[in-house]
């Protein structure tokens, strides 16, 4: 039972997180190349901006920001699910090899279509999604043992090993692509938010609209699973089947996010931890907070990256890693 005090606190946290997200949004729009001041942003949002301001906001800034927010949410929820079902606080979709798999697919894409602009770019998310999903399935198959099912710890190890191997393959293929295409690819790998077009917002949105409520509905299953496997079986959870479904949802969310945002790690690691420390381990409360936190983190990282190196920007993935890896080490030293 969630007591009313905790619920109130969680509601407050969500409200504060929403305000923080809006704040980061305003800061993001008002900094860097082609910026709008907060006042002008207000007017432009309500249709009173100049044509130039409308162009900047609705064509350039807004789609990119929305892609960043959605990808941050997707990665955060994906990480939360992985941490709960593996009962390993260090799990993250990037560490599990999904980024590497998507990256390999992106190399193939660049080899076939080139890395420039053009309409073929709209197929890239499909490639990346396929690569990420395929890698996850391979990891699942490789760590499956007859009669025992999946050992979550082994699954993480297999993921680390497989992503190292895939990185080897990526290196081979990437050295063969033309130099101008290489730039696009290097930026993708480094996690530059590249899908700054309404099409990509639309490509990502359905995944979140469908999968987020599904996951929140499964909160109770996640609650028991994150405690103890035997307990879950005792409480009547079909562990193996549920774990498979949840894993696939986590992978789909991560792969979809990465396919438009580029290779970003650590958001899926950090956001659930921050959320758990704010509102506790109950999934009903902490999943929404984790999603908000993920969005704030990624949008902040993208903004910082743009401010540091104007106008091309440091890829958000790099900024996130610089924040995320020390956090990871802190988590490692904290938990016994």
């Amino acid at each position, binding site marked *: 039972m969630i007591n009313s005090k905790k619920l109130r606190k969680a509601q407050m946290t969500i409200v504060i997180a929403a305000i923080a997200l809006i704040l980061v949004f305003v800061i993001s729009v008002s900094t860097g190349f082609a910026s709008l001041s907060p006042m002008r942003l207000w007017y432009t949002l309500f249709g009173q901006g100049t044509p130039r301001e409308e162009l900047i906001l609705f064509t350039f800034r807004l789609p990119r920001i929305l892609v960043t927010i959605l990808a941050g949410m997707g990665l955060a929820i994906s990480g939360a699910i992985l941490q709960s079902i593996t009962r390993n606080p260090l799990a993250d979709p990037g560490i599990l090899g999904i980024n590497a798999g998507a990256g390999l697919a992106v190399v193939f894409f660049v080899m076939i279509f080139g890395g420039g602009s053009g309409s073929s770019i709209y197929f890239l998310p499909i490639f990346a999604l396929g690569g990420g999903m395929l890698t996850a399935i391979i990891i699942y198959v490789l760590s499956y043992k007859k009669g025992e099912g999946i050992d979550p710890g082994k699954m993480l190890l297999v993921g680390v090993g497989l992503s190292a191997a895939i990185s080897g393959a990526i290196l081979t293929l990437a050295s063969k692509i033309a130099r101008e295409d290489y730039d696009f690819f290097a930026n993708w790998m480094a996690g530059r938010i590249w899908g700054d077009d309404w099409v990509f917002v639309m490509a990502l949105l359905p995944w979140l609209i469908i999968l987020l409520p599904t996951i929140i509905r499964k909160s109770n299953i996640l609650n028991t699973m994150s405690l103890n496997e035997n307990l879950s079986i005792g409480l009547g959870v079909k562990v193996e089947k549920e774990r498979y479904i949840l894993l696939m949802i986590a992978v789909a969310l991560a792969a979809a996010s990465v396919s438009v945002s580029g290779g970003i790690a650590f958001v899926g690691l950090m956001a659930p931890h921050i959320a758990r420390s704010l509102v506790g381990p109950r999934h009903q409360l902490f999943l929404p907070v984790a999603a908000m936190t993920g969005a704030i983190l990624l949008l902040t990282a993208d903004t910082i990256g743009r401010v540091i190196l104007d106008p091309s920007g440091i890829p958000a993935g790099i900024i996130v890693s610089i924040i995320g890896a020390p956090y990871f080490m802190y988590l*490692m030293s904290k938990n016994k």
Partner: protein
Amino acid sequence: MKPINPGQKKETDVYSRPVIGTTILTISILLLALSLVLAISVGAANIAFFDVWKAVFSYDGSRETDQIIMSLRLPRELGAAIVGAAFAVSGAIMQGMTRNPLADPGLLGLNAGASLGLAIAFSYFSNSSYFTLMLFSFLGAGIGAALVFGMSAMKRGGMTPLRITLAGAAVSALLSSLGEGLALINKLSQSIAFWTAGGVSGTTWGQLKLVAPTVFIGILIAIILSRGLTILSFGEEVAKGLGQKTFITKAVLMFIVLVLAGAAVSIAGAIAFVGLFIPHIVRFLVGTDYRWVIPCSAVIGSVFLVLADTAARMINPPFETPVGAIVAILGVPFFLYLARKGRAIQ
């Protein structure tokens, strides 16, 4: 040698096979010589074995083949041999010290750190000598190691291989992100990437003059300390019980790991997995006594990387496949095997 502590698990029982060890060492040295000759003679321009002999032992600058051999192929293949030995020995030391079967300089953040060091050197000291580059590479490896390996080795009881491996993945992600960031800011992304992917292909005599003695001395010290390493591989308590000064041995060995990994990365870029699977194969052959494991790892690591580099040149001539990719693709099944084996993550 008898099991020292009957309570220990079976894998820590030491067994040494001097006869097999000597045989393997002899055979692998011969193999190394053979593979070097093979590596030098095949390639975009095939050269007969006899000409290789002539070029090395009676060099004539007017012959074109002699020039190819002496200025391109020989330094390259020697570079491969040295890099292979350095990675294999540093992997062996790490596995012995941490008692972690998954230890490898590539997986545990050393290589990423060394690459970051190089990125810093390229960005801010672009005119510096090769010695400076090597120093930066070494310092970077030290940072990577301090973050991952130090945390586990100095902690009593150590951490599980799963945690160390995850920490390695995270630290690698951090250090390579920093490196990429630097490269992007300074618009060096491509040159560093191509340089890293280039493997041993650009090795020069100047580099060898610095790296070869460094690696050689490092391996020599490792051999001298190998008895202590064997005892360390029983675990800290046993080693202390046997009167081993564990801190000094650990510190010196750690330093050697850094020197070897840093030197190797400064020539060939970050190549993972050589340090992982060569020591495993060697232990399977000669037993768990590090007095044999270290020299055999060095020679077999050399043979392996020379052959891998030759394969890299032969797969799609005249284009070169990065040798790191070949090693990774060969190494991963092995890693997966270790990861699946229950013992690996206990």
